[in-house]
Every structure is written in structure tokens, then in C-alpha cells.
């Protein structure tokens, strides 16, 4: 096991239970775990190397928890991110409202971060069109407006998942000479939050 080298930081954002973890699981481990829903605690990090032409780009993917409880923490996950996959559930219109919130947040705080709007659970729509609550064209218009890419995926069938992350890696590759890559790790200039207090026992 060697030290982890990460080229591009990618953050997964979106309302809870839209399927961010399943998406990462499908992309990284090529599997879909069936079972009771389990929310992510805090965030999970995975590094995944992928080929772009003859180069290897390693995506450092931050799979964040959707729960409101961790919202205050989310800044550290998208800071310096080169791509943000903003997920919404195609069968849940409220999750798209939440996606809009994340887009606004990213536009305000991370202007260099490319946004990828990702509708999830497409297999449910294919099984029953009546379940669709988020219109394809509405999202496409929104994507055009904010200069984002738009994908509809299914982690269950794997449809469009590799394409999404491949696009993220390609975009990073073609833009990497434009923006200075941000150093990962501790930022010594950053004022340390005083979260730690002496023990009183």
C-alpha cells in the first residue's frame, strides 16, 4: 500500500437517501447492495484511478452524508473540489429543490468547481414512468443555465454511472493546466477551530 495520490477532488452532494453512496459503490466496486437503507455517517472517502486517454487520473471522491446534521461540515468537503456531483432522486421532487440549494452554495463558495447534476434511480422510472417527479427537460434547462452537465443514472443497473465519472475525469484532465491544482491536506494558514478543550476530569 503506497501513499495516496489524488489528482482531482470530487464531492457528492444531495439530499439524504437519494443514493449518493450507491452511486459511488457502483462506480468504485461495480456492485449494488440490496438491503435496508443505511445513512452515511459524516463522510466517506475513496480514491479511484481512472484512464483518460493514455493518462491515469485519480479521483478522490468524498461521499458526504445527506443529513442536515452534517451541513455545517460540508464546507470542508467541497472546498477545493474540482467537481461536484449534485444528486437528486428522479422520483422525489423535493430532492431536486435540495439540489438547487447545493448548486447555489457551490456557485457562491467554489466557482472553479464544475457541477454535474445527477438524477438517480432511473431504473424505477423505466419500470413505471408514472413515478417520475423531476422532468428531464426542466433539469436540462437548469443545467444549461448554470453551465453544468446533466446525467440520469441508475446505480442498480449501472446505467450512465461510469459515463458520469468518466466525464468528471476528462473535464479535470482537459482543464488541469488552467487552474493551479490545490494542495490536499492541512492548510497551516487556516485558523484552527478551537474544537478541543482541556479535559476537566
Amino acid at each position, binding site marked *: *500500500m503506497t*501513499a*495516496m495520490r489524488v489528482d482531482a477532488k470530487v464531492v457528492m452532494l444531495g439530499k*439524504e437517501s437519494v443514493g449518493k*453512496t450507491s452511486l*459511488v*459503490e457502483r462506480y*468504485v466496486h461495480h456492485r449494488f447492495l440490496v438491503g*435496508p437503507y*443505511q*445513512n*452515511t*455517517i*459524516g*463522510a*466517506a*472517502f*475513496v480514491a479511484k484511478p481512472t484512464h483518460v486517454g493514455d493518462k491515469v487520473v485519480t479521483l478522490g*471522491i468524498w*461521499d458526504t*452524508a*445527506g*443529513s*442536515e*446534521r*452534517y451541513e455545517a*461540515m460540508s464546507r*470542508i468537503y467541497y472546498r477545493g473540489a474540482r467537481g461536484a456531483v449534485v444528486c437528486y432522486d428522479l422520483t422525489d421532487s423535493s430532492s431536486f429543490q435540495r439540489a438547487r440549494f447545493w448548486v447555489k452554495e457551490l456557485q457562491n463558495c467554489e466557482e472553479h468547481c464544475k457541477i454535474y447534476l445527477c438524477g438517480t434511480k432511473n431504473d424505477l422510472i423505466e419500470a413505471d414512468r408514472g413515478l417520475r417527479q423531476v422532468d428531464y427537460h426542466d433539469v436540462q434547462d437548469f443545467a444549461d443555465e448554470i453551465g453544468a452537465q446533466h446525467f440520469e443514472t441508475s446505480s442498480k443497473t449501472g446505467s450512465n454511472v461510469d459515463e458520469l465519472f468518466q466525464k468528471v475525469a476528462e473535464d479535470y484532465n482537459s482543464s488541469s493546466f488552467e487552474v493551479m491544482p490545490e494542495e*490536499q*491536506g*492541512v*492548510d497551516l494558514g*487556516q485558523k*484552527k*477551530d*478551537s*474544537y*478541543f*478543550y482541556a*479535559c*476537566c*476530569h
Partner: protein
Amino acid sequence: MAADVHNQPWESMPSNGCLTAEHLTVERLRIDRAESPTPGLVEGTEPGAGQETAMFVHTQSFEDLTADTEEEAGPESAEGVGPVEEEGPDEEVCPEEEARRSGVREKEEDVTSEAWRAHRKHVFVLSEAGKPIYSRYGTEEALSSTVGVMMALVAFVESDKNAIRSIQGDGYRVVFLRKSPLVLVGVSRGSQSDRELVRELQYVYYQIVSLLTLTQLDHIFKHKQNYDLRRLLSGSEHLTASLLRLLELDPGPLLSAVTCLPLAGAARDTVSASLQHARAPTLVFSILLAGTRLVSLVRRKEQHLHHMDLHLLFNLVGSSSSFREGEGWTPVCLPKFNTAGFFHAHVSYLLPGTPLCLVLVSTDREDFFTLSDCKRRFLERLQKRSAFHALQEALACPTYPVAQVGIPELRHFVYKSKSSGLYTSPELPVPYSSEEEQERLMCLYQQLHSRLHHPTRPLRSIYRCTHTENLFAWVTSGFELYLCFSPLGTKAVAVAAVNKLLKWIRKEEDRLFILSPLTY
């Protein structure tokens, strides 16, 4: 030294080059102790006691002490002391079983149904404004009127400058725990004492604090009294549910102690040394777990971890599959350490498919990659050593059969070394292999524990015969011991067994306990 090694074939000795200074100290310590005239009766010399300082805060905190004195005034039913003839086994109620098997459906239960009423233990959390925050069974919305009644009871008694602690009647016990800005209510049909129930409610309270911090909790309710806290707690219901199961089945919380993965002392020392080596400036605790068993804990000097915080960490890690996906990074408040702020925990499984999970607790939320590197260094260092092989072998048998002790009448025991805050217990034998029986045995231990630690009339030892087993419990300043014998045994057998068992634990202490905890 050499002779000592030959006498102990159970212990896998370290390979060349691994015999550390710590190991030698341990060996010497053991020899010293074996010669002690009164082994085990004094705190610090009992089997399993660590050298120097303990890893845990094991003295009672102010809070624990005040809770105890409160209890003195509580309506503890007075019973005679000494051998007591016990009633038959509890009857199991089927609906409860069914509901438990289907964990997901618990939330969708109809709160007006008989099945809902039949649950042995309900736990409710409400805000001071009377809003439901958590219910173990059924949805909170459906319970708003029930919760309203609970809050009315609390408020009614308080208006008279008093506090409600518990209500008993119709075979039920209703216990209240007031932890502003929350109110916790436990309703139990079982034989648990108020004290035990309050302890469980405290765990639930600290579980909530560990997710939010008390500062945030206070802040929220100060600004908006009727805030719906479920918004912030969403997704944590399974944590509380699994915590409640843990409290019912695991002797750890009862004894204020944790248990270790049995591992040869030398191998454990190597693991600890590797953890110690992989340090970082912001690192406060490095904890290696195997399921709910501790393998090693290395801490910053002067900083102690409370067993309750450790149980909350065990529960967080054990009940969340999310840490298996990658490296987890989560804010976590350790409420017994400090209720005001978050630590940041790096949680990762050492190798895919093993229960070995490393938790690195840091003070800096920006430090993920530093800690990720600590983990890598730890694993690299450990993998080069033979201890890694020993560790993997130990994972194959995380527990031991009681037969190893060599006392035929002995079915099960729990032994806690007070000074180290660690306990050891064999696997449950056949009569207790089902979850109901396991819970019943735990209930019996709890009853003994309540007797030994009675706030006004504590006991040193107690022997109890029932139709299904004989129980013996003994507490000294050094240890606490609970034994379960077959019902055919006698008191004399039990007393003789204690001595034999203590000798056995002394012989095995190197494997069953962490004798030389390290600091950075």
C-alpha cells in the same frame, strides 16, 4: 525468564527482535504478582489490572454521583438480603419477537395495537415543549398525545418544585430522566430496577449529545422552543435502536467496562507500539477494535477516555455499514469527555472483510489526510511483524469456552478488573445461546449488580438459587465477579470455584486484558 516461558505453552512468544521493554516489564510484573500474599483483593493488584495508569476514567463523575444520591430517595422496593428463591423464567411475548426480527418495520408499527403495548421496554425522548423526538417503536407523530401526557406529568410535579422520577403500577415501571433541554422516559415491564433504566436512558441521552453536542442542543432550543429535533437526528434512529440492544445484551455498559479481544500479550504490545508510532500532532486517541472488542487503545498523555464514550463509539462503528465503503470521516462528540465540542474521527477497516476497525480521534477537522497517512503507516508497520499474523489468528476465535477454566459446574462468568476498567467473559454456553436466554441471563446479572451496588445497603457478595441456575456475585476493591452455575451446584462448590477461577484469570491475564497501555 526462560523457565517462565516454558511453563506457559498457551502464550505465543514474540519472534526474535520483538521482545520489547514493555514486554519484559509485563513478565516481571506477573512474577511479582504471583508471589503476592493476597492476590487480587486490592485495587491495582487484581488479575487484569494494568501497570501504571489506567486507560479509562473509572472514577465516577460528578454526574454519576449525583444520580446515585437521587436514587436513594427513589422508590426502590425493599427486599431481604441473602439467598432468595426466584420466580420461574419470564414468559416471552410473541408479537415483540416478530417486531424485533424485522428491525425496519419497528417504525411503522401501529401504536394503538396490542403488539405495540406488549413490547417489554419502550424508550421515548421528548423536548421540553412536549414534542416527540424519538420512540423505540412506532412513529413519533402517532405518539404526540402520549408524549403530551408524559410532559404534563413532568410539568405538573415540577410546578410544585419537585421532580418526578418513576411511576409503578400494573406490572409496569415508568422512569423519567430530565436532562434539559430533553426529557427521556423509559417504560418497562421487566424486572429492571429504576437505576438500571435510568442508566439506559442516560446512554440514549448521550447518544444524542454525541451527534449534536450539548452546546448545539441548548442553542437550538434556546432560540426555538418547539423545534422539531428529528430533522437533525434523521438517520440516527438505527444507532439508538442498536444501542438499546447493546444495553440489553452486553455486560459492558452495566459494569462500566469494556472487553478485549483475547490476544497474546506480546502481539498486543506490538500492535500498541505500532499505533503509538503512527502518531500525529492532533491525534488524541487511537483505538483498534474487533467488533465490540478492544484490541488496543493508545491515548495522549493526560487524556482519558470514559468507557461510556467508548461504548458510544463501538455502537457508532458497529451499527453503520457506511464505514465499510471507504475511509470514514465524521464529527463526533465524546460527551463524557466534553459535551461542548466535536472531535473528528477517522474510521476505517484495516483490511476488507475483517472486523478490525481503526478509529483515530483528532481535534482538527481538516486533518483527514494526516490521519489517513497515520493509518497507512500503522498498517505498514504492523504487516511487517509476526504480531499481525497472531492478530489475524486471534480474530478467528474472539471468545473462549468456559470449559477452558476447568470448573464443570461453571456455566458462565463476568469478571471486571476495577483498576483497568476491563472485563472478561467467556462465550455463552448452550442454555443461553438464544437471544432471549442471553437477555434473561443479563437481567439476572443486572439484578445482582443492583444488589451489590445498592445506594444505601450495598453488599459484598450474594448467592442466589433459581430453578434454572445458581448465581454468585462478589465485589472487592479490586474486582467485580459474577458467576453462573448449573442449578445442581452448591454454595461450597461456588466458593471453591471463585478461587480456581481467579487463579485461571491471573494465569491468562496477559491474553485477556491490556496490561501495558501506551500513550503517545
